[in-house]
């Protein structure tokens, strides 16, 4: 049963990703991306990562893709052509993409996973709750990266405002 849900979600994610990279219309591309992100969120749910599934929908599909849509609307109609400058570009890209895929799949050898398993068994997660466990980890062992990410978000906000300001020549 879980395998059936996984296969459906995998097909949905791959098809929407392919549709996004071949989209002529930018808005269609963004919407296909939203479908892909929601499929990934449900895959997170299958993997027992409930907090991340909600964060994925709220931040990725809900904020980042909405930002993309704002920019697409701001830029107006775009000629999103699929033609390239050199005729060898698309076959070469497909060839290298295929080579990369073969290389990535060839190294997937999961029985060789080393290291001792951490103590977070599914029974513990079912008892305590995934957000609480993630929070305990986030604020104890990873508190320094957490604070640094907050500074990073501040820098991003300041940078975005500076970049978007209209430059007016001093009179």
């Amino acid at each position, binding site marked *: 049963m879980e395998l059936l849900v996984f296969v459906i979600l995998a097909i949905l994610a*791959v098809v929407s990703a392919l549709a996004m990279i071949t989209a002529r219309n930018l808005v269609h*591309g963004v919407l296909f991306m939203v479908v892909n992100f929601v499929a990934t969120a449900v895959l997170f749910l*299958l993997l027992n990562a409930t907090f991340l599934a909600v964060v994925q929908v709220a*931040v990725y599909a809900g904020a980042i893709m909405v930002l993309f849509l704002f920019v697409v609307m701001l830029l107006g109609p775009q000629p999103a052509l699929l033609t390239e400058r050199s005729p060898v570009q698309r076959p070469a890209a497909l060839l290298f993409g295929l080579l990369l895929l073969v290389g990535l799949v060839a190294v997937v050898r999961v029985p060789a996973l080393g290291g001792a398993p951490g103590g977070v068994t599914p029974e513990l997660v079912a008892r305590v709750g995934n957000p609480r*466990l993630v929070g305990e980890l986030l604020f104890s062992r990873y508190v320094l990266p957490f604070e640094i990410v907050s500074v990073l978000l501040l820098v991003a906000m300041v940078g*975005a405002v500076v970049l978007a300001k209209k430059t007016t020549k001093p009179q």
Partner: protein
Amino acid sequence: MVPVSYYAVLAAILFVIGVMGVLIRRNAIIIFMSIELMLNAVNLSFVAFARALDSLDGQVFVFFTIAVAAAEVAIGLALIVALFRSRQTTDVDDVSLLKG
């Protein structure tokens, strides 16, 4: 339970689709979304291995990746808007002033 290798292969396929999107398309916004697709594929593999290893460190890493991706999208889209305002194009092949 679905084996972890299935998730790893799915993440690899999504990553390669993102790479091809960056290589083939010329529109800056589609290229940017392909980069987000690559990040998403890596997030998926992180969470899959976190479940396989009975640890939540992978999920915390994905949390940070999502935060960094949000910051990167804000700056990147501001850059694209500034570029469009000065050059009236989002075709990356047209932005070649520095080309030798």
